[in-house]
């Protein structure tokens, strides 16, 4: 395993609301994901799994603590700069696929590249390559409404990895899929991590954890347990390298 930390959360707290309505979604979480590693985050509803993911992707800002992706602290970046990070370094996969129905499969995959200002032709070429990697190159010109759930999720994974992004954040990516298709999707995620990306997989199904290198358990916004190769590192964040 490479010792290269792609995602590093340090003492991250997230508080929603103020006064008596205050909700502590995350309470001082520290957490690192390395290149080539797939980390599963598990926990019951409301444990803070999704908040962790939105903060890791720069969609939300922590109340305190720092979030570094490939060495860049997201909390110091502007909205624009964080958006750029999502185009170039971070890929999202959602439970509901979240493809844009008005765009074809290839266009959905090309979206982050196009948004990044890459020429449409090149973006499309890259998208086709990414679709090939997830095994659905022949569906490039179809619209999402004309695809099955599994096909849509493959497109979503292709979109998350296109342009060599090294952090893939997946929020219950198999939740809307049957078992067999779900396994197929996880195999793709695993392959992507084996190819050098860091993956964070939020799931509540124990059997999915089998695909992960490590499992982190969350409850009420704190890490309560972990399994895997390097438990001490996860909890204390002492450098392995």
């Amino acid at each position, binding site marked *: 395993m490479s010792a290269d930390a792609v995602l590093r959360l340090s003492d991250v707290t997230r508080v929603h609301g103020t006064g008596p309505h205050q909700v502590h979604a995350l309470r001082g979480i520290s957490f690192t994901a390395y290149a080539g590693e797939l980390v599963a985050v598990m926990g019951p509803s409301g444990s803070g799994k*999704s908040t962790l*993911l*939105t903060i890791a*992707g720069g*969609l*939300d800002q922590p109340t305190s603590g720092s979030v570094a992706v490939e060495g860049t602290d997201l909390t110091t970046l502007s*909205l*624009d700069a964080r*958006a*750029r*990070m*999502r*185009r*170039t370094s*971070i*890929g*999202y996969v*959602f439970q*509901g696929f*979240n*493809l*844009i*129905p*008005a*765009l074809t499969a290839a*266009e959905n995959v090309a*979206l*982050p590249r*196009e*948004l*990044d200002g890459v020429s*449409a032709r090149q973006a499309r070429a890259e998208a086709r390559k990414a679709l090939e990697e997830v095994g659905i190159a022949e569906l490039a010109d179809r619209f999402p*409404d004309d695809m099955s759930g599994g096909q849509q999720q493959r497109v979503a994974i292709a*979109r998350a990895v296109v342009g060599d992004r090294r952090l893939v954040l997946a*929020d219950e990516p198999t939740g809307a899929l049957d078992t067999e298709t779900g396994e197929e999707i996880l195999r793709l995620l695993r392959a992507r991590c084996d190819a050098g990306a860091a993956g964070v997989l939020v799931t509540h199904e124990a059997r999915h954890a089998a695909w992960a290198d490590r499992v982190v358990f969350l409850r009420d916004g704190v890490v309560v347990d972990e399994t895997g190769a390097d438990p001490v590192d996860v909890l204390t964040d002492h450098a392995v390298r």
Partner: protein
Amino acid sequence: MSRSTGRTASTRGGWRIALRLARREAMRRKGQTLLMLVLICLPVVAVGAASIVWRTQDVSSVEGLDRRMGAADAYVETSGFGEVVQAFDPSENYGVIGEDDVFGGPDTLGTADLDAVLDVIGADRPAVPLRTSSLSYRTDEGLGNLETLTSDLASSLTDGLLTKVRGTYPPGPGEVVVNQALADRGPGIGDTLTVVRQTGEGEQQIDLRIVGIAERTTTRGYPMAAGLPGAFGADGPDEMGQWLIGGGPVSWDEVQALNAVGVLASSRAVLTDLPPASELSPELPVMDSGIDEVTLTVLALVAAMVLLEVVLLAGPAFAVRAKAQAHSLALVAAAGGTPRQARRTVLASGVVIGVVGGVLGVALAVAVGTVAVPVAQRFDSTRFGPFEVPWPLLALVAAFGFLSAVLAAVVPAFSSSRQDVVAVLAGRRGEGKASVRSPILGLVLLGVGIAGAVAGAGAGGDGGGSAAILIAGSAIVSVLGMILLVPMAVGLVARMAGRLPLALRFAARDAARHRTRTVPAVAAVGATVAGVVTLGIALASQEAANEDRYVPMLPAGYGSVTLGDSDQTTVMAILDRNLPEGRSVTVRGALTSTDDGELEMEFRDGEDVLSLSYWSALSTPYVVVSEVPDYLEIIGGDRAELDATLAAGGMVLLDDENQDDLGAIPDVGRLAVDVRRWDPEGGEPELVGTTEVDAAVAKVEGTSPAVAFLSPEVVEQLGMEVGDVGAIIPGPISSEAQQDIDEALAALGTSPYFYVERGYQTDPAVRIIQAVLALLGGILMLGGTLTATFLALSDARPDLATMAAVGARPRTRRGVAASYALVVGGVGALLGAPVGLIPGFAISRPLTRHWETGATSLDVPWLLIAVVVIGLPLLTAGVVAVCARGRLPLTARID
């Protein structure tokens, strides 16, 4: 029987539930509801407020009684005829009957015949004369116009004609009261008012002392002076008599008795309590009732167009509301709900918004009307009647608002009842495939519309009215056809969007996927553009026709003065004072006015009398010169040759474009000239001189400024006198100089006529109408596009969140918003413009057809069309880009 009762009850119950749901939904989505209410209310408020101003401004016969007759029981006036019949209000209609129907015949009553009038209705009735006329008065600058009123103002019969503001009232002999408008222009209380009156003997000046300020109750803002009878000079004995009559009600029978002696009467008793219409004389001339069938049809067409526009503008909001309810409706359908119930639920939204919008609109209309009436009064010199709210009309307008809301909900209601329940429950957000039938029907309607327009354009002869209605009606049919083609057009744009930049591609595809929302918005823009293009072409073509038919009287920039009875030295001095000295050239002509009657020349080729056309811009048809003057622009004929003819004692006849209709002037070398004198007492004209001279023909452009240029010898041989009749001034003449000269000449009293040829001047009203047209089109387009765009943005929230998640910049939302606006505005404009061109071309024909030649003019205002088709969509997109929030919804879907 019981089954049908049960069904009615269930229908009623179904509506109750649907209405309750619609009410709750309206409360739940307040922003959207507000938007819908605004779209439905605005036209109701605008039309409602306008109708209040209109009804208030309109003074009915009863409302105007005190203004017209003060406190008198009747106002009577002699008609100048022996016997008349009148409507209950003679100012609306009257007719002359009897054998002696010549105006001012020997037995007719006049200003001296009050006794004869009173003989009919009671000799002991009190009466005072009341006369109004228009005269001039001296101002610091020269002369101004004023309205005068004379009556025995001390008499209680005149109470209510004037209201005293300050000073002394009533005025005594040699005194007047004036209104504030006159006082503002010069003389005030204590000053002298000099009234100028033109009489047969010349100008009469009357000095009067101003003792007070009083306002007339009918008008405001126009200078007015009031005094005792005769204060502004004595009336001639032949003038019409006008009196206020008191002494008790004047009955309809008495009015008819007055009519029998040629007197018209407005009786307070008759007008406040109208006799049945059967009392009116059958001999009363039939009048246009004001609203004829053409007017009604035009009103109906306008109402239909407005209704269509409102429905289209409000349509997207209802579509989005129906979409928001789609999931609930699908659940209802899954639980066994019928399509009819789904339809009713969506229609109920229209009913709720329609009722609230109508009532709210009327309430706001009354409020706006209350504010608008005093504002409108400022711009109107006639005093308005009492504040009047035309409730039946407002109810009609409210019903219009209700109808538009329900109609706007119809299409979303039907698509909701046909939605794919499985797709909706599975969370798919698009709509099914577009209907294949509707574009075909659209093409058919478009074809019918074009055919109608062509037929209307060809239909000539019977006046423009019916042709215009046919064209306007087919324009509406064309627009309906266009609406049915919109889904196809939007789909086509989506299919071609593959190569477009991301934001535009997304907007185009998304627009096509949400047809019920997009189509009405695009159609609203299309209908607006079609209307603007049609009216623009109509306006421009009419303007072009006016310009084509404009005939200059002089070379461009030249001015001319006709002396008439004015003193030549004085006039020339005025010209020299205001223009560089020595510019004006005196025009000499054969004098045609003699003490024994008017002289007229006739030109003959043997026995054939020539018909010659002219417009005497040179003060005389027969100009006397020894060579062709420089100011005459000759386009055919050799100037040297013409000069030679004049030098040899001949004449030059002018041939202009009107001559084609009158027959060509024969080029025979010699023509006979006769002079005839017209007997002022009637009878045949008498030949007073004749000669035969060399004649040459000069071709001039436009209309010739005279009939002929004669050498002095010709006039001498005819025995006519030659004199200075006017002057011509080579240009340029500034408009300031023109105004100064006009004022100075007006002060002479003899009114010499000064004319400056400035070519065709576009009526400023046309420019204003064009600007209003572009502005109105812009507002409607902006409204339609903005509504659709922001509704689309709220619909596209999940997609925007996805874009944010994959790294879209905040400004991406602006780009998407602007692209929506561009798609809606652009597609609408591109569809609407050609649809508007056809009726535009068509209407230009009946509108500009020359009554005689049948020639028509066509002018397409390309600039206006470019602004509307290209400029406005771009502008709207720009406005949207600026107004749209840049911030993307970030975490909307990752929880």
